[in-house]
């Protein structure tokens, strides 16, 4: 399948990249960033919102470090999945990385790319021919959402695996754009609209993600529902972090992907402190997830089944982490 025509740019240093963004913006030219290409290029092949300019990050220097509390946006997912340092501190992060796509795709895909993954939907991730036949949707070329027709926002599903674990870890994203550099908690990064997706500007890029020291000592885990054990996006993914102290579960954190247009952190559930570390606590987590999680009929598996699996994952993760 031939990619649509575009201009390809290869900045090697961050100031050069930011200057390029400024120039393209001043000329009124829309652009996308591409790093591993495993998300952007299939979408471009399907003519899903292609831009006239692509800024490749392939030759950008730096931002590929993997340290305990700091991971560059250009770090390969394969390197995250095999990192012994991360495995020791944040096993949930490594579990999530290992569950992404396939080994060969993980050799291409990057952390920044996974965090900024485009949202997915039955009516969007299709060929141009299919979409033309069915009628275009709000997210690409159409005027109405085909999942929730009354709404004027897009309900396509966020399907990244790393974001829920980083949410549990209370991670902070470092961004850079023509206006300068800034940091933003990942919990504030996503915007509930499958089209807009982020609270960053289109010409801002992710430089790195940092995990605060306060998250050290959390027991972390990740579970994922998908049609096959490899290659598939999560249609429900649950990340959990907790501590056990003085005979009770404390600091319980749960985040979910594959459910709505953004990955959601369920920190404001009243599950936070003093949960009994057994079946009773696990059932409470399950009930809370069943109440909280919303799903739509826009990715594989029925919404009710996916919601039920969120509860089961929560229950099982709770028991596993408590006895870890």
């Amino acid at each position, binding site marked *: 399948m031939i*990619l649509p*025509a575009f*201009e*390809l740019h290869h900045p090697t240093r961050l100031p050069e990249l930011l200057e390029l963004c400024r120039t393209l913006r001043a000329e009124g030219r829309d652009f996308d960033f*591409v790093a591993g290409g495993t998300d952007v290029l299939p979408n471009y092949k399907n003519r899903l919102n292609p831009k006239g300019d692509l800024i490749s990050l*392939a030759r950008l220097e730096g931002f590929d470090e993997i340290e305990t509390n700091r991971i560059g946006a250009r770090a390969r997912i394969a390197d995250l999945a095999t990192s012994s340092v991360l495995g020791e501190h944040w096993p949930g992060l490594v579990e999530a990385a290992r569950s992404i796509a*396939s080994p*060969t*795709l993980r050799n*291409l895909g990057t952390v920044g790319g996974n965090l900024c993954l485009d949202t997915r939907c039955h009516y969007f991730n299709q060929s141009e021919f299919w979409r033309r036949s069915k009628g275009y949707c709000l997210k690409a070329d159409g005027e109405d959402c085909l999942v929730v027709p009354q709404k004027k926002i897009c309900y396509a599903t966020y399907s990244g695996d790393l974001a829920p674990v980083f949410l549990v870890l209370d991670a902070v994203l470092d961004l850079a754009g023509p206006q300068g550099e800034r940091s933003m908690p990942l919990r504030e990064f996503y915007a509930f609209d499958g089209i807009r997706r982020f609270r960053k500007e289109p010409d801002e890029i992710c430089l790195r993600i940092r995990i605060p020291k306060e998250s050290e000592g959390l027991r972390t885990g990740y579970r994922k529902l998908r049609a096959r054990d490899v290659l598939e996006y999560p249609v429900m993914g649950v990340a959990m972090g907790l501590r056990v102290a003085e005979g009770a579960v404390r600091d319980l954190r749960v985040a979910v992907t594959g459910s709505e247009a953004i990955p959601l952190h369920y920190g404001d559930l009243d599950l936070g402190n003093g949960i009994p570390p057994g079946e009773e606590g696990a059932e409470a987590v399950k009930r809370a997830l069943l109440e909280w999680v919303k799903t739509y009929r826009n990715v594989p598996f029925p919404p009710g089944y996916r919601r039920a699996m969120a509860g089961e994952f929560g229950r099982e993760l709770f028991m596993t982490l408590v006895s870890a």
Partner: protein
Amino acid sequence: MTRTRILRLKINGHEREVAAEPNAILLDVLREGLGLTGTKRGCDMGTCGCCNVLLDGRPVNSCLVLAWDCEDREITTIEGLLPEDPGALHPLQEAWAETGGSQCGFCSPGFIVTAEALLREDPEPTETRVREALSGNLCRCTGYKKIVEAVLKAARSGRGVEVGS
């Protein structure tokens, strides 16, 4: 305006020059620009592994790699694994033939290139490791058992990395 550029690519140990537009993917450049048709086009979406090549020693889906991103990088295709002796096979290819790892053969280059990367990293992989490493490659004929056997056979014989490494 789309510009065509002459790319200088390092393929199978040799410098090759090829003209490519910005939107050219590595798979197209290999097959159509350089005549290296051993690398196959399957799904074109990164989900079948037929187009796998080694990029700096790592197996990747060449249908999702922009050709312009590949300058100054080492590319190894199935042709690059062949011994210099005409008619000779790579040890993995021999093992494929001996175990019946190929039926229609369309997926074999992708599997073999991916298996080669595994054996370079781990010359004595377990069956689980082989299955995990090949999990991004699809075969619609064999059912995988003979493919996994072929990789284990090549590994057991200690021949997996004799050639092309």
